[in-house]
Structures are given as C-alpha cells and as structure tokens.
C-alpha cells in the first residue's frame, strides 16, 4: 500500500517537474537552469510545509506522508538533473557558473525550507 502511494506521488511529482520546467524554459531562455532551480525550491518549500505540519501533529491520515513526502516532493525535486546541469554549466560557461548554480540551489533550498517551516509555524500558532 505504501509502495503504491509512493508510486502515485512519484508520477504526479515527475509530471509536475516536467511541466514546470517546460514553462520556465519557454519563459526565459537562458543557459542557467532556472527550471531545475524552480522545481527544487518549490519541492523544498512543500516538503518543509508537510514535515513541519506533521511535526505539529496535525498532518491527518498516515498515508499522506508517503504520498506527499517520498512520492510527490521526492519526485518533484531532482538531484540528477541538478548535477547534470552543473556539469554542463562548467563545460559550456565555466567554473563560476557551475559554482553559482550549486550555491544558489543549496542555499535557496535551505531558505525555501525555512520559509515553509515559518509558514507552518505562523499558521499553527
């Protein structure tokens, strides 16, 4: 049952990533992988909201966690494309662009997650 929830969440997350990445790509043509950044930051925000909400003891049914955390957020975000984008930036633009991508993604993810926890904290208190 848990596996099925993870698979359904994973399918939804992957399609959302594909769609969002396509929209962002069409929106701004740039060598910088904005699409991957957007999905990773959005997923970091969402996973912080869900796990934060669960930590406050109010997530509701137990099946929501595998569906949303392992499935949806896990597949909405990606590390492989981030790694591939970074190596591509290094080969096509240079060191600076690759390092910038890593720093912006990791710090941006931390900020997005902190923002998500902050939203939960504000809503629950």
């Amino acid at each position, binding site marked *: 049952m*848990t*596996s099925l929830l*993870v*698979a*359904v*969440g*994973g*399918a*939804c*997350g*992957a*399609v959302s*990533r*594909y*769609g969002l990445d*396509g929209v962002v790509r069409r929106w701004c043509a740039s060598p910088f992988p904005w699409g991957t950044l957007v999905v*990773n930051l959005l*997923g*970091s925000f*969402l*996973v*912080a909201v869900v*796990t934060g909400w669960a930590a406050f003891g109010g997530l509701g049914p137990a099946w929501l966690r*595998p569906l949303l*955390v*392992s*499935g949806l*957020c*896990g*597949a*909405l*975000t*990606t*590390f*492989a*494309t*981030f*790694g*591939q984008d*970074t*190596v591509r930036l290094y*080969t*096509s633009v240079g060191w600076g662009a690759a390092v910038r991508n*890593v720093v912006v*993604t*990791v710090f941006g*993810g*931390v900020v997005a*997650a902190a923002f998500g926890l902050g939203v939960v904290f504000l809503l629950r208190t």
Partner: protein
Amino acid sequence: MSEVSAGRWRFPWAALAVALGGALGALARHEVALWLGEAGFPWSTLVVNVVGCLLLGGLTVVVETCSVHRLVRPFLGVGVLGGFTTFSAYLVDAGGLLAAQRPVGALVYVLATVVLALAAVGCGAGLARRFVRRATPSTGEVERS
C-alpha cells in the same frame, strides 16, 4: 512543447513516459530506503543521488550521440532518474542531522552529496563516451558541443 503542431492535438506520450518513469524511480528510491534503513546517517539518500547522477551522466551522452527513440530521455532521464534522485529528502536529511545536534555531520553530508554527485555525473559521462566510441568505431571521435 514542440509536439504540439499547428492546432492539431497529439497524445502527450512524453508526459506519460515521464509519469511512468517517475513512479518507477520514486518506488526504487523507496525500496533503497527500506533496504538500507536508518543508520544514524542518511546513507540511502546519498547512495540514491550519487547513483542517479552516475546513470544520468551516462544516459545524457548516449542520448546525445546515438540515435535513440524520442521517449528514452523523457522516460529514463526525466522520469526514472529524476524521480529516483531527490533534492527535498537531501534537505530533510540535513535538517534531521541538525535537529539531532550533529552540525558537523550535516555539513559533511551536504558537501559530500554535492561533490560525489558531480563526480558521478562526470564518471558516468566518461564511461558512456568510452562505451559509445567502442560500439561505433567507424564514426571515430564523438563530437561534443
């Protein structure tokens, strides 16, 4: 999307391939997490992300140098490997180490994942390039943009 041509609706095969691949990738990640279990350090996410990067590095070379079916990349690259690897669990794991009063562990985890993942993309690409060159000796040097 390039598949939509002049007002004629076409079945979104690529999106379906991504969904199917995403389900399989997420499921595989879940199985690895169950298999490796909780060991005080988030090994399963680290392994999943590094292995996924190795495979995507190789797949990208194969897709760009060989003529493969147009759904191979959406299915294997965007779907399976995109769904297998994860950035959200990476951050949750780092947060978990911080919450467990292990700031050094969190820092090591964050840096090690990035360094190993990037090295894995390079290794995967290198291995695939060698394999492609051996498989198609007549074409000689493989052009890289």
